[in-house]
């Protein structure tokens, strides 16, 4: 595995938590984002994720650098899956270790917010009666917004 990666196979969160663990770490937070069956009353059959892979991995690594600057002492590993995902599959994993728990929670939540803002990954929802590429209609990544 790589510390920041896009994968097209099922994500094993344990690999990422083990990657960030070290003897000075007292806290590890692992966030996993899963395919949800129902969104706003519409039933999802499955999702399809697509990415601009090299740029997405570069942006994940940049987010990791931002986290290490903001919360010194954290260690981070992140992955996003692409391709077709079924209900409950893991789309994204964020593992953060820290000497103390506060930073592990804060940095982890920061990471998912940033991923949703700047990492070039796109989700298509496939329902019983249609499909659509999902994208926030108001918030765009800005150069230098870090």
């Amino acid at each position: 595995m790589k510390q920041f990666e896009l994968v097209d196979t099922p994500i094993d969160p344990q690999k990422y938590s083990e990657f960030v663990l070290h003897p000075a770490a007292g806290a590890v937070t692992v966030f996993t984002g899963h395919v949800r069956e129902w969104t706003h009353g519409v039933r999802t059959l499955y999702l399809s994720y697509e990415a601009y892979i090299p740029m997405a991995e570069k942006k994940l690594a940049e987010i990791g650098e931002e986290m290490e600057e903001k919360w010194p002492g954290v260690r981070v590993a992140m992955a996003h899956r692409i391709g077709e995902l079924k209900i409950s599959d893991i789309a994204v994993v964020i593992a953060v270790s820290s000497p103390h728990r506060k930073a592990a929670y804060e940095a982890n939540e920061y990471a998912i917010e940033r991923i949703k803002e700047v990492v070039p990954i796109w989700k298509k929802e496939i329902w019983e009666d249609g499909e659509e590429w999902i994208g926030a209609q108001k918030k765009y990544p800005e150069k230098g917004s870090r």
Partner: protein
Amino acid sequence: MITVHYFARLRELTGKGEESLDRAPLTVEELLDWAETTYPGFGKDTIHVAVNEEYARKEDVIQAGDVCAFIPPVSGG
């Protein structure tokens, strides 16, 4: 020549994942205008352009050899 990549909705709209253009140098804004004209419904007002895997401003100039990508609103996570 520059390379341009299309993803997600734009890949489906254009029917291609990438193509080569012989238009450099040009600005990001000019590239977006070209795309909107060439592919009606492109929606350039909601799309960012990455040049060599970094988000670019509208006034940035794209040089021959650059690799560009149209980035519609992202929805990872």
